[in-house]
């Protein structure tokens, strides 16, 4: 269907996308000044505050790592900002928010969106219409909104898609570095490494997993991750480890979100039951995500990464709509290879949207109308998991994993 749309030069599409981003950033600032309900995401203020604290150690306390203390580095503590649970790298990237203009971060995220568009177009299989990129990413309102509101997901997207973009002989090292950066930013991208190793080992049996390219990739990406971590730790110390990684690995979200675990955590908060549930979800989640990487990485990487991401999000103990971005950027590469009938495709999409709509309606009743609907909301979460499992299973079975044309860079 997307093949039949007007052929507009991609440069024009990118220009339009850029203009839309700029327009929304400007609108966002105007809106925030004139309305109590803000356009800008709360997280953006969290990042900006953290960046300001880094620049003003007199307000936040000095960075506590051994290197910072040894050299008396004039860097502040971003973790002074409560709910800032990210790498200091993000605060550093956003320091121009304080030094230049508060909209700098939004501009960076928007630029990431544009760069992802460019890379996706390059990665499209030969003969695939670039309208897939246009509709699903460049002019898609969801990423447009997410980045111009100041949510940082696009940075992870840029690291991940760059890793895919550089996955060619000759630039393998850059691919590994980008994956290391992505993992530093958000942890979960490490699962893509398994798929890459499977890809590099294809046709060579188990020996392929320890062949030079595979070892180069594994060591470079792990090395990048640990090097970045070591630098951050040396400057900011234990709080960096705690907030960027440990918090996310042990977090217990008792407030409602798409995952059914919320109610289990809420009802058992503080009791020893919580430990059992950790194991119940973690082992299948990891096993499935890695297993998908091993089986499908050797056949089609974008498809494997998309499936891994969807499986990871599906079985995670917390799930918010922000997480959907994590597989959204794969869609232009994946949709052209789906062999579903239009009817089934529409049906799956309706199921995906419908299961969220039901959840949102009940969540509204709880949060804003104070109705005691915890159990109904939990049922909606169950419905969400079942729907998404059905959709993911179906898409895996109908995906063309072995399309003959190999992925090459165009232009």
């Amino acid at each position, binding site marked *: 269907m997307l093949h039949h749309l007007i052929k507009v030069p991609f440069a024009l599409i990118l220009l339009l996308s850029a203009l839309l981003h700029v327009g929304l950033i400007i609108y966002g600032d105007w809106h925030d000044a004139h309305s109590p309900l803000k356009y800008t995401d709360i997280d953006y203020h969290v990042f900006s505050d953290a960046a300001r604290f880094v620049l003003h150690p007199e307000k936040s306390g000095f960075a506590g790592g051994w290197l910072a203390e040894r050299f008396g580095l004039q860097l502040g503590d971003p973790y002074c900002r409560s709910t800032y649970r990210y790498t200091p790298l993000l605060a550093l990237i956003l320091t121009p928010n304080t030094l230049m203009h508060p909209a700098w971060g939004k501009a960076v995220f928007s630029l990431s969106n544009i760069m992802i568009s460019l890379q996706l177009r390059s990665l499209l299989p030969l003969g695939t219409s670039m309208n897939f990129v246009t509709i699903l990413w460049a002019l898609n309102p969801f990423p447009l909104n997410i980045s111009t509101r100041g949510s940082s997901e696009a940075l992870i997207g840029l690291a991940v898609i760059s890793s895919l973009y550089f996955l060619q002989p000759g630039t393998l090292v850059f691919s590994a570095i980008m994956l290391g950066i992505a993992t530093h930013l958000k942890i979960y991208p490490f699962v893509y490494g398994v798929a890459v190793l499977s890809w590099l080992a294809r046709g060579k049996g188990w020996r392929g997993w320890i062949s030079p390219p595979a070892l180069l990739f594994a060591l470079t990406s792990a090395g990048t991750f640990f090097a970045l971590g070591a630098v951050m730790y040396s400057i900011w110390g234990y709080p960096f480890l705690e907030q960027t990684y440990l918090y996310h690995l042990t977090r217990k979200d008792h407030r409602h979100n798409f995952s059914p675990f919320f109610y289990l955590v809420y009802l058992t908060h503080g009791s020893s039951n919580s430990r059992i549930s950790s194991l119940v979800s973690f082992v299948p989640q990891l096993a499935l995500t890695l297993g998908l990487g091993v089986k499908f990485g050797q056949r089609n990487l974008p498809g494997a990464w998309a499936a891994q991401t969807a*499986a990871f999000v599906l079985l995670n103990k917390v799930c918010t709509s922000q997480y959907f971005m994590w597989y959204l950027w794969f869609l232009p590469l994946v949709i052209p290879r789906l062999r579903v009938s239009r009817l089934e495709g529409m049906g799956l999409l309706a199921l995906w949207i419908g299961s969220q709509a039901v959840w949102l309606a009940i969540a509204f009743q709880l949060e804003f109308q*104070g109705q005691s609907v915890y159990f109904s909301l939990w049922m909606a979460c*169950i419905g969400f998991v*079942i729907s998404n499992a059905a959709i993911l299973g179906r898409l895996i079975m109908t995906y063309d994993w072995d399309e003959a044309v190999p992925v090459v860079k165009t232009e």
Partner: protein
Amino acid sequence: MDSATLLLSHIARDIHQEPAYNCSLPGQGFHRSLFLTPLSALLPPETERCILQALFFLPPSVFADPYELKQQADDHRLGKFMIFGVTDLEGPVSAVDPRGTVVLLNLDPSKEGGGSELPLHMRYPEPVEHNLLDMYGQVGFELPCPIVYWACESVDNNEETSPFDDLTPPFVSPYKSGTSFYFLPVQAPEGKQPGNPVIEVHVPAGDLSHLPAVEWGTTHVILLAFLYVAYSAWSVPPRPHSTAREKVE
């Protein structure tokens, strides 16, 4: 005795009979504003050296977001404020300081007659046994009405003790010795308990009788989802025999 009650017991003799303010927490749900509405024009004893303030004693089940308040103060929709105690924006009731937090807010008599609207957020209450829930599946707690007063700098530095001095942490009196206070009575909704005005707040609570079903359901559905996706992946046939177009690394 909680701080609000303690403070009120000190100042009982200072309060005029007529309530000067209404306090209310309209609406439902987890995000509401505490409204302080003046009932009559407020004349301070001596305008120049007095500021009008309100003290909100928040139990652990309610909190004010300091970043939200700062945003509102910057937008001039709220006066200057101070929060005593540690505000945890995410934790459940069981994980936060049981003494709660205290918000001290400057009121502006020239704007809205000295009223204010303080945005508040409820934490999920502790889940309870089914029989402890009311017919709406909610539990209740008491939110003391704010205590409103003029704080005036004294000309003479007499060492008067202030009624704030022996309140327990997290509130620590920020007032210099010699400051005098003129309390204005606040009236709870429906004028209940005039000596100790509180708002009865009801929030939906988790029902512990759901736990067996939720535990069973969650674990089984997650396992089912895992098994189905794993089966779908397993059922995809292996790749066809590699073609000559296979790229060689």
